[in-house]
């Protein structure tokens, strides 16, 4: 009575085939990540030490550590976040919660999508024109960070907007029916439930900001500086540019040194991701529907 027909068997075979196909694609996706990490760890771990992190480069950057670049990247990321997170989150709240569906909103949305598509070297040139020259910030952390902030704004805006819109409309309607204003609704119900998604957007932004080279090359990052930046108006070294410089511009750099720098850079990004993911899991455990 319940014997499989030939159609059943064929369906099962097709089912198995597609499952394996999707699995294969997923595995292929993971391979480069594993290879990159493995190569970096194998070739770079010998270089990385406490001293490597806490001393400046020496001998024309062919020896010594990475302290100015390490600290510089922290500065750049921090200032970029301060500039872009409030701007991006506020813009996303407006677009998701307040904006009427009219031509202006559509133009703004289109602009954000296009901003995400602008090549980073174009952002760099914009940064030179706007922040370095027009606002007279000079080549400085401030100019470089603002350039990075503008480049990563779409990431923050899109992630925030998506996570706000993932909060069911029924929750908003229940609040509005109660006589809550839009802001009361946002603050008490929408934002607390969207915060983990917003954090995801910020994680992505941090990762991208820390790794970008082109936008900071002309706006604030220096080839070599033996001292640490003292304010946002100083120039600074940065990990990404330093990696580029010692890999291509400086003769006589020992082979394992760039691997060490890359390992530190990727570890910074992964550590920030891990921290934020942990925070998200914690928040998600608290809020549910």
């Amino acid at each position: 009575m319940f014997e499989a027909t030939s159609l059943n068997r064929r369906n099962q075979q097709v089912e198995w085939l597609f499952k394996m196909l999707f699995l294969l694609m997923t595995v292929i996706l993971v391979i480069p990540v594993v290879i990159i990490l493995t190569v970096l760890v194998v070739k770079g771990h010998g270089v990385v030490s406490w001293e490597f992190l806490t001393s400046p480069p020496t001998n024309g950057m062919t020896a010594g550590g990475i302290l100015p670049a390490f600290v510089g990247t922290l500065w750049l990321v921090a200032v970029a976040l301060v500039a872009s997170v409030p701007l991006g989150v506020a813009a996303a709240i407006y677009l998701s919660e307040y904006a009427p569906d009219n031509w202006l909103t559509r133009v703004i949305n289109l602009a954000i999508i296009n901003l995400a598509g602008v090549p980073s070297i174009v952002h760099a040139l914009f940064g030179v024109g706007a922040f370095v020259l027009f606002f007279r910030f000079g080549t400085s952390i401030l100019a470089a960070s603002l350039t990075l902030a503008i480049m990563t704004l779409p990431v923050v805006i899109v992630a925030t907007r998506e996570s706000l819109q993932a909060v069911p409309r029924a929750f908003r309607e229940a609040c509005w029916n109660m006589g809550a204003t839009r802001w009361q609704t946002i603050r008490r119900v929408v934002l607390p439930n969207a915060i983990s998604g917003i954090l995801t957007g910020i994680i992505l932004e941090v990762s991208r900001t820390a790794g970008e080279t082109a936008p900071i090359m002309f706006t604030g990052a220096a080839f070599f500086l033996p001292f640490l930046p003292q304010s946002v108006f100083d120039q600074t070294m940065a990990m990404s540019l330093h990696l580029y410089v010692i890999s291509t511009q400086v003769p006589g750099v020992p082979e394992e040194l760039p691997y060490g720098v890359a390992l530190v850079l990727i570890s910074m990004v992964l550590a920030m991701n891990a921290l934020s993911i942990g925070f998200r899991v914690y928040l998600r455990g608290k809020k549910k529907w």
Partner: protein
Amino acid sequence: MVGEGGGAGTRQDRILTADESQLAAGAQRTSFGDRGPQVSSDAPVKLSVQGLTLSYGTKTVLRDVSFEVREKEVFGIIGPANSGKTSFLRALNRMNELVPGMRVDGTIRFNGEDVNSFRNVYALRRRIGVVFPLPVGLPLSVYDNVALSPRLTGVTKKAQLDEIVERCLRRAALWDEVKDRLNALGSLLSGGQQQRLTIARALSQEPELLLLDEFSIAVDPVTTMRIEDVLKELREEMTIVLVTNLVQQARRLAQRTAFFLNGELVEVGETEDFFTGPVLDSRTREYVEGKFG
């Protein structure tokens, strides 16, 4: 009222079916008597609707509707899907302003005042409690769900909030089930509990008018009867507009009922007349007898 024990079976029959044999059996039940006495026709008018037309873009969902709801009356609105019932409720507390493309023509008066003349639409909405078809437990604790509305209006004292929360949960017949887990998430309660939580939340606004939009659609029969009992107590204190597609529910609760069909108001009258008395339009009798729907 049917007794608590042994009543469950009968209750289920009454809610789950609306065909003619049930209708005939239902007519013999005494429980139709406890919909309460008719509110006198010279009672103050709580809600007055005149020439109300609602449309979304070019689609008209409600056409030139006029009727009155009296103070402390349970007023039923029945009709099949797409009759404009839910849109009507939206217009009452000006939620239409938050629905893009929704247009309201005509006049709605609340306590004799045109709702559009309220400068403070938030105050208007606080005076009108709304319960939706699908229970909406906000992703806050049970306590915070009920305390939200008082907090929005500036109540901050713990003792005062405690008192409001307990009173509203008790009146919504939910207190005994949740008193030990007020900090549990409201959105994780069962459907029936969430619907009573929604009612408790609406009560925390201390509304003068309670709108219920097909509240029993996602709720089990036993909970439906409990909520109906709650409504029978609430009608002493507030006016209730009950939108339902269960004609028997309207018969059990509403003193007067309006029949909406395809965006038109077919008839307004005493509920019992729809079933056994004179009707103005033969479609009314056919609908309540289940000949179409």
